[in-house]
């Protein structure tokens, strides 16, 4: 088991390094430099700017410096905002994004498997159809559309929900829900098929014939086993939530990291793009690692499968 852990850790570190290198290479392959557009600049100022951001050095040296800075937790400076560094923006935006993401994940994890189990227990009856309609809507409607619909039809009409912005917990309800719907739907569908498979297993029959209460059979024997595939997609889910947050934060006007990222794209603020991308990638790879390791502890069978290949 520790061998697998080590292998997984090495792979994660390699992936982080690959992301950093790819991002760095991509950003430096753009012709010209970020200050070329400000053409009215005196040559001396231009030179000073270049040396301030270290752009007058050879690319390989810049790469080494950048890696060194990253190791010390320095994500670099922003080219457009001369006051705030990328670290400042991450510090300001990430807690907001993290709260939004965590709430959405919580909604998805609670309601997705619940809907899926309900659908499987009442297969081809009303609860099944209802859950699957919700699931199909969740998969078909992109979050940016769900967000707009919620603003237009819910927030505009129900005074309880603010139309946008951030601050109180009411602010976070609609965006969390809009963000949660797609993973919720995916989980519900996965849970339904996995639950149907489990319910047909012999050990369910055994449990029933032992005379265990129906609720106990469902909770202790069926759900516990059926939820494993749902846990295995948690990594992908977190990754989807992250990208979804770019869009949701834009629509709802939430001052999170996602909005900084989107702004940095439209401003062509390359260092900020680079810094946030790397930050996102590191967070995600850590999450994937945690999910994988947790899964190994939850499901002892996975060890055999992973080592068997």
């Amino acid at each position: 088991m520790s061998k697998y852990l080590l292998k997984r850790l090495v792979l994660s570190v390699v992936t982080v390094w690959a992301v950093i290198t790819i991002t760095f290479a991509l950003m430096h392959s753009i012709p010209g430099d970020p200050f070329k557009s400000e053409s009215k600049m005196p040559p001396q100022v231009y030179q000073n700017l270049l040396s301030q951001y270290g752009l007058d050095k050879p690319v390989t040296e810049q790469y080494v410096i950048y890696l060194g800075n990253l190791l010390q937790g320095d994500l670099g400076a922003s080219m457009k905002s001369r006051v705030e560094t990328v670290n400042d923006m991450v510090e300001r935006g990430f807690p907001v994004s993290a709260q939004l993401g965590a709430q959405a994940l919580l909604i998805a994890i609670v309601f997705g498997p619940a809907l899926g189990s309900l659908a499987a227990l009442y297969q081809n009856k009303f609860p099944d159809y209802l859950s699957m309609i919700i699931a199909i809507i969740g998969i078909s409607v992109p979050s940016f559309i769900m967000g707009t619909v919620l603003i237009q039809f819910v927030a505009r009409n129900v005074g309880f929900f603010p139309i946008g912005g951030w601050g109180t917990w009411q602010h976070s309800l609609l965006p969390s829900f809009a963000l949660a719907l797609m993973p919720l739907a995916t989980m519900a569908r996965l849970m339904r098929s996995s639950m149907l498979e489990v319910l047909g297993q012999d050990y369910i029959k055994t449990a029933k014939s032992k005379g265990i209460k129906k609720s106990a059979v469902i909770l202790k024997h069926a759900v516990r086993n059926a939820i494993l595939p749902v846990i295995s997609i948690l990594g992908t889910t977190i990754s989807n939530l992250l990208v979804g947050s770019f869009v949701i934060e834009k629509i709802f006007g939430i001052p999170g990291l996602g909005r900084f990222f989107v702004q940095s794209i439209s401003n062509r603020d390359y260092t900020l793009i680079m810094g946030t991308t790397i930050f996102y990638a590191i967070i995600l790879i850590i999450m994937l690692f945690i999910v994988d390791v947790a899964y190994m502890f939850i499901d002892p069978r996975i060890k055999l499968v992973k080592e068997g290949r």
Partner: protein
Amino acid sequence: MKADTNLRPELFERAEKDNKNADKIKRPTIKYWPDVWRRLNHNKLAMLGLVLIILMGIMSFLGTEISGYTYFEQNLSMRNIDPGSEFWFGSDELGRDMFTRVWYGARYSLAIGIIAAFIDFLIGVLYGGIAGIASRRVDSIMMRVAEVIYSIPYLLIVILLSVVLSREGGGTSMFVLILAMSLTGWVPMAILVRGQVLQLKESEYSLASESLGATKGWILKKHIFPNTLGPILVNVTLTIPRAIFAEATLGFLGLGLQAPKSSLGTLANDGLAGLAVGNAYQIIIPAILISLIMFSFNVLGDGLRDALDPRLRK
């Protein structure tokens, strides 16, 4: 009436004993693909998806021709007109006909989705296939590379590539969008194909074939390739909505085609501005179309998966 219990010999008929035709198959054999098609036909939701895809495909070409407007024609005296007889889907902020623009956008979105999925399919099958039949060491290296690429979030890298590859202020061209999606999008397909090939290579019938003297190429052609086709088809069907979704998200984030060209994502992005001033239809119509496309491909893919799964065979 009492039943006749008197069993006379003439009540019996001699059963014809025919050894020659005993093992003859009476019913016509249904080949694999017609059988899949038959089962798909029974799945109403999947068929609805298929019909919608065909309809939207036709409309994406026909729809731009029948309203009498072009997608770029501006009519500043008729801005933001609600849907009605003049403009079927209303007009946008610059007085352009939304009906034409929406179908024009759908054409781009569908084209991007299908082409990106096709490229993913080509690279994925090639890469996965090679990894599957290559030696253990080559396979191991190829899969580690794929795993590293796979761990990088898909949309993040697509966004990054679109930023780098598009010129400032020039919008993102269709070529760039497809390139950005394909650079990392092939990995799931490669992992799938490689897994299938490995599994089929170890299967009993491949072994049987090999022990009968079949060459590797023959086994590949006759046993492995036809059996991977099903899962590949399902994967392609589900890759298309992923690519369309990615394109729509990029368009919404301002990394889409440059106006007056449009895709459903850029239309939704434009519509968001319209929403703020009360022209909700400008975002709702593209939104419905995106959702319909996603819905259709997803249910078709699910239906195909069920139809191809021999365990669900009745």
